[in-house]
């Protein structure tokens, strides 16, 4: 096993801020390679009760990390799901024990392309194996063993988090009482792959990307990664949401400047989103994780398609979609509902009416938060009495 110090040689954060387990069990990846003795970073919120029946596992999305709530110790910004998770929030940390892991391939302490390869003592870069959503889930499963949790109260995840969640339920049907995939899909479609490809090409077109080999000189492909993030950000918002927030408003100026600087507020906003992203995210991780999303097609793992994935499952599902989400539209969620119904699974479904687009699950969308809270609280009561 490579030394832990080695792992953090190229990291942009302090090791004391990151909790980790080392997964010693060999994991055979979908690509054929086997990995072992690799780190999975995680964070927890709240307290695990004596009965161990109040645990909720959250899966993060493409650009997320394990710092769900409170202050992210690396970026010093609020956790990415602070709107929903925290004391007294919809996912109440005074009541529930929350676990979130950084995905395999990520860049916040879990095994990823910027880790050192013991073979040549260089960061993996593109030598890192191509991973899948299923690999991510198999890698995270050790966390349940670590906390000695037999059955979770719930698993939650939006976007790519929802894909991980569906994969988790398909692999380990008895390990969670309930599940809430939000604004997600069971299969990445052509448009979703196309948008990810756009992001990857932006990164790879940056000369500093250097075929993934950029860690040593610390000249990272900032411009490419920023463009990737800008493009992605557009897909997270709705046409109406953008128009209402930015319209044609100009950025701290009275008139056009007849240059290519950011005249419009929307330009300035996107540039800002791109710039802050490159400080916290690794470009190669973006390639690997987005690739894993594209390979995700749960139906392909079962002979009889998606219906078979949930056959005889007792898990209580709540599927949530947002009316203005065009990246993972309601149709994607309904396909999951249809498959669950066809397999006789226990399923609830709600489409939340909102202008906030795909990002609705991350912002203060009351209808959504109330629905999520109602589902979790009522199911906690049912789960407690079941034991």
């Amino acid at each position, binding site marked *: 096993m490579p030394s832990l110090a080695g792992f953090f040689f190229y990291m942009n954060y302090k090791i004391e801020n990151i909790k980790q387990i080392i997964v010693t069990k060999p994991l055979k990846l979908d690509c054929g390679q086997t990995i072992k003795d690799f780190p999975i970073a995680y964070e927890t919120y709240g307290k695990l009760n004596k009965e161990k029946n109040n645990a909720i596992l959250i899966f993060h999305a493409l650009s997320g990390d394990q710092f769900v709530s409170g202050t992210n110790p690396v970026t010093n910004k609020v956790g990415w799901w602070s709107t929903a998770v925290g004391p007294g929030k919809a996912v109440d940390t005074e009541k529930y024990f929350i676990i979130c892991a950084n995905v395999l391939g990520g860049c916040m302490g879990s095994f990823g392309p910027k880790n050192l390869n013991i073979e040549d003592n260089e960061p993996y870069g593109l030598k890192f194996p191509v991973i899948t959503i299923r690999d991510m889930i198999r890698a995270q499963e050790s966390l349940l063993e670590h906390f000695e949790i037999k059955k979770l109260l719930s698993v939650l995840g939006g976007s790519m988090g929802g894909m991980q969640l569906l994969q988790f339920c398909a692999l380990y049907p008895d390990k969670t009482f309930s599940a809430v995939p939000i604004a997600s899909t069971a299969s990445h479609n052509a448009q979703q792959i196309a948008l990810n490809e756009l992001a990857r090409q932006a990164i790879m077109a940056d000369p500093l990307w250097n075929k993934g080999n950029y860690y040593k000189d610390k000249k990272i492909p900032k411009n490419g990664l920023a463009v990737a993030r800008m493009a992605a950000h557009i897909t997270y918002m709705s046409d109406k949401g953008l128009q209402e927030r930015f319209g044609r408003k100009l950025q701290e100026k009275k008139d056009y400047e007849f240059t290519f600087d950011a005249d419009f507020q929307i330009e300035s906003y996107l540039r800002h989103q791109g710039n802050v992203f490159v400080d916290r995210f690794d470009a190669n991780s973006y390639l690997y994780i987005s690739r894993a999303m594209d390979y995700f097609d749960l139906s392909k793992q079962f002979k009889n398609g998606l219906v078979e994935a949930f056959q005889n499952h007792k898990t209580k599902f*709540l599927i949530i979609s947002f009316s203005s989400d065009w990246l993972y539209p309601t149709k994607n969620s309904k396909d999951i509902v249809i498959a669950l119904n*066809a397999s006789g699974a226990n399923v*609830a*479904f*709600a*489409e939340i*009416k909102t202008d906030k687009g795909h990002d609705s699950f991350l912002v203060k969308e009351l209808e959504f938060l109330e629905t999520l809270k109602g589902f979790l609280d*009522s199911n906690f009561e049912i789960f407690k009495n079941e034991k």
Partner: protein
Amino acid sequence: MKNEFKIIVNLLPVQSRVLDVGCGDGTLIEALIKQKSIDARGIELEENKVKQCISKGLSVIQGNAETELAQFPDKAFDFVVLSQTLQAFYQPVNVLNELLRIGKKVIISIPNFGYWRVRTSLLFFGKMPVTRSLPDSWYNTPNLHMCSIKDFYQFCDEKKIKMNKIIGVNNEKTSSINRINLEMKNLLSEVGIFLIS
């Protein structure tokens, strides 16, 4: 809980699988789970009511029964319940066929247009009836295809749908309906509950 729901709860056997179509705020589903340990699910069109159901821990999907029952396999449920909604569909016959496909048996209740108060409203006052079970005015009623107990009885007869049980409901009173007392019950019942297959 309204009398109609109490009757439906009584009709359904314990631990069966039930789908409540147009389940509203989930009152019936809750009663079925609590009183009969029934595995009850629901489908409801209105977002707000779906939210209420989900907050009670009920498995209710938001959707339009007119178009979305196709997702359920044949005989997916022991019973499918449709409470006072059949008349509000664009194509009630199609919906009815779907209900009979996905449920081994179907319980349908209809607000009876043959009820004497309904008849007198039109006969003596020349106005569209507004009653307890038909509370809306002509301009805002969701009801498109009103029928009487007798109409639905004859419809089932013609379509060779088996009527296992018919119950007439008038306020707190209930009575069994058959071929012989049909005319009378059609006049005296506010709501008719049909168990068909």
